[in-house]
């Protein structure tokens, strides 16, 4: 237990590369608190002008899907092409769809 307490918690870093785009996962790092995590992220992930905004989330707060259940989770979507909106006849006037 004592060793665990010496390690700073792990944080996931999300960077927005430019205005209008989404924050994307950039990586993870260690920090003692949220403020330090943001500053560490600034130093580790935006040194080459990669971003204009940073989000950090403590890794323990991220809940992920189970890789072992991936077959049941994702494969059934494979043969359901009717879920793609490609079977509609679009009016000619409608552009950029």
């Amino acid at each position, binding site marked *: 237990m004592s060793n665990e307490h010496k390690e*700073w918690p792990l944080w996931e870093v999300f960077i927005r590369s430019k205005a209008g785009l989404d924050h994307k996962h950039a990586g993870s*790092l*260690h920090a*003692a608190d949220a*403020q*330090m995590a943001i*500053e560490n992220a600034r*130093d*580790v992930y935006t*040194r080459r002008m990669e971003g204009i905004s940073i989000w950090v989330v403590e890794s323990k707060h991220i809940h992920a899907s189970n890789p072992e259940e991936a077959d049941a989770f994702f494969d059934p979507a494979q043969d359901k092409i009717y879920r793609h909106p490609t079977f509609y006849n679009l009016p000619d006037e409608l552009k950029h769809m």
Partner: protein
Amino acid sequence: MSSVTTLKYTLQLADNVLIMGQRLAALCGKGPILEQDIALTNISLDQIGQARSLYQYAATIVNNMSVADKAQLFNAPLLQEKINSKLSITEDDLAYLRDAWDYRNCLLVEQENGDWAYTVARSFFFDRFQYLLYTAMLKSTDSTLAAIAEKSLKEVQYHIKWASEWVIRLGDGTDISKEKMQQALQARWEYTGEMFTMNELEKEAYNIGIGVDVSQLQQTYQQQIETIVQEAGLQMPTAAWMQTGGKNGVHTEHLGYILAEMQYLQRAYPNMEW
């Protein structure tokens, strides 16, 4: 001879950030954790970048001087010989070929890294000064110095944030971190007075409009330092005696070792590039 004043004043500014940057660069790969190692290296590179801008400007001033004016600028024989043989000098010559007595950095920046609290304390004291200095220098009648100050200010704002937060974090941390932070603040404080004591060069630079009256910055500096120190739950350090000398070329024993390591390659293999 205002160009000599501008040259020497620019060099003093450059020496401060070069030696500070060199001190922090020595921690590259040795930081307590990877993320803070990178933070320190970033700050170091900011400072060495500022030093480069200033040395480039200084080199231009030297190169534009008349032969008579630049005949006796430096004590360092290697550099003066190069100037006297009518060669143009560069930023590198100014950094690598001047000896310790030509360096005019304040004593604070050449102090040892010590433990993490000492490293933080030194940056805390220096960065806050740099912020006030550069802010005042925006009004310099020398447009190059004003421009370098403007560019550097953004960097220094982050340096201040980094150092101040560490003072607060350690002061407000465990009993041990608090004690170590207090000790480091106390030990480094005696080197802060020099930054606000005007030497002859600074007075002259101020009189011709290019330089800053650093003595006017001291009160604001103390208040700003005190605000952070209080927030950290620490005691304001005191000093019965302030160390001086660096700004006049009289250094602590540390500078020689820093220069020996930094200048070794160019001294041993002149004009070496890699």
